[in-house]
């Protein structure tokens, strides 16, 4: 998941799509999610409640799916030049990915989890500010072609959804850690 977000951020910064790589990662993530589902079915006494495991796996899968969709749309829409806002947002996503990967490494004993998850919430707020500014710029520029308006509105929406899903992952981990406290 973290690798996917880093790849997406790189593709935004370089202004060229890494969509094939992202699609590969998405498929890899699907496989892992599937494996988790199977393992949950077969394991009699999982360390965390089965429904929480499935919820978490699903939310992580969503992050990767959204990230792949962003890159796909950049290709599909034939977007040549990436806006500064989208680049900033990509960096925010890459950071959130790193924090979540860190948090997932702490699931066995939940030690030090809280500050890491707080960072994800902070990054989500940062992302909101970036989108706000981006939309302001988008509509201020009166010379925008209608197609560009719709394309960028969609891409900013998808970027925001990707980060929102990161926050959902953090919330699910919080719930798990409360239950296992």
């Amino acid at each position, binding site marked *: 998941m973290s690798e996917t977000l880093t790849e997406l951020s790189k593709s935004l910064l370089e202004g060229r799509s890494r969509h094939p790589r992202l699609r590969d990662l998405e498929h890899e993530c699907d496989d892992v999610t599937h494996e988790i589902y199977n393992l949950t079915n077969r394991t009699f006494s999982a360390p965390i409640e089965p429904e929480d495991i499935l919820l978490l796996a699903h939310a992580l899968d969503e992050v990767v799916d959204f990230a792949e969709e962003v890159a796909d749309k950049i290709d599909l829409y034939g977007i040549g030049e990436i806006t500064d806002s989208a680049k900033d947002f990509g960096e925010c996503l890459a950071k959130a990915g790193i924090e979540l990967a860190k948090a997932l490494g702490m699931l066995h004993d939940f030690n030090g989890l809280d500050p890491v998850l707080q960072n994800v919430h902070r990054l989500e707020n940062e992302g909101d500010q970036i989108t*706000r500014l981006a*939309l*302001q710029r988008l*509509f201020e520029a*009166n010379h*925008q*072609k*209608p197609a560009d*308006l*719709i394309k960028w*509105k969609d891409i900013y929406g998808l970027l925001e959804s990707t980060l929102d899903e990161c926050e959902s992952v953090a*919330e699910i981990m*919080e*719930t798990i850690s*409360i*239950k296992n*406290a």
Partner: protein
Amino acid sequence: MKLSLIPQGGRRFYDLFRKQGELVSETLAELTKSLLEGKSRHARLRDLEHQCDEVTHQIHNLVNSTFVTPIEQEDILLLASSLDDIVDLAEETGDKIDLYQIHLISDAAKAMGELLTKAGGEVAAALDRLEGFAELKPHRLEIHRLENEGDRITREAIGELFAKVNDAAELVKWKDIYDLLEATMDACEQAANVMETISINNA
């Protein structure tokens, strides 16, 4: 020693949910006022959103520190976050009206606002009597009815938008506002569904 079925900590959950219900209701009423008056009350909405965040946080902490909760822990967290979602979406709607510099509010948006105010009242009333779960049903049914009515309004509004408006920026802005108004109403329905699940689990 007399043992109470609902310990002090338990009572506190119902108090916090009552508080959250009041915040939902006030937020939706503020949003509606700003739609009817055609001027944004976003500062007030943001203030209410922060207050709701604070209550949600208190509920999380209480779950953390309470050994026996009156409702299952995960149901408490789910309900708190579904109420928080309503307030977040209402705040975002207010924010977008500012951000998009929308001055003339459409009749459909005003009508949607009035439905949201009513839904907020129902959510608050349901949360006011959450303990015991006996009187939930009429509120839940009313919220579903309001949601259906809201769907009809946004559907017509979006149809009219694409039939009559030619300016791309106007189209994109209003499509977004209608979607947000609808999402806010959907969040009310979602909260009603969570309350329903809780009442089934506690029957």
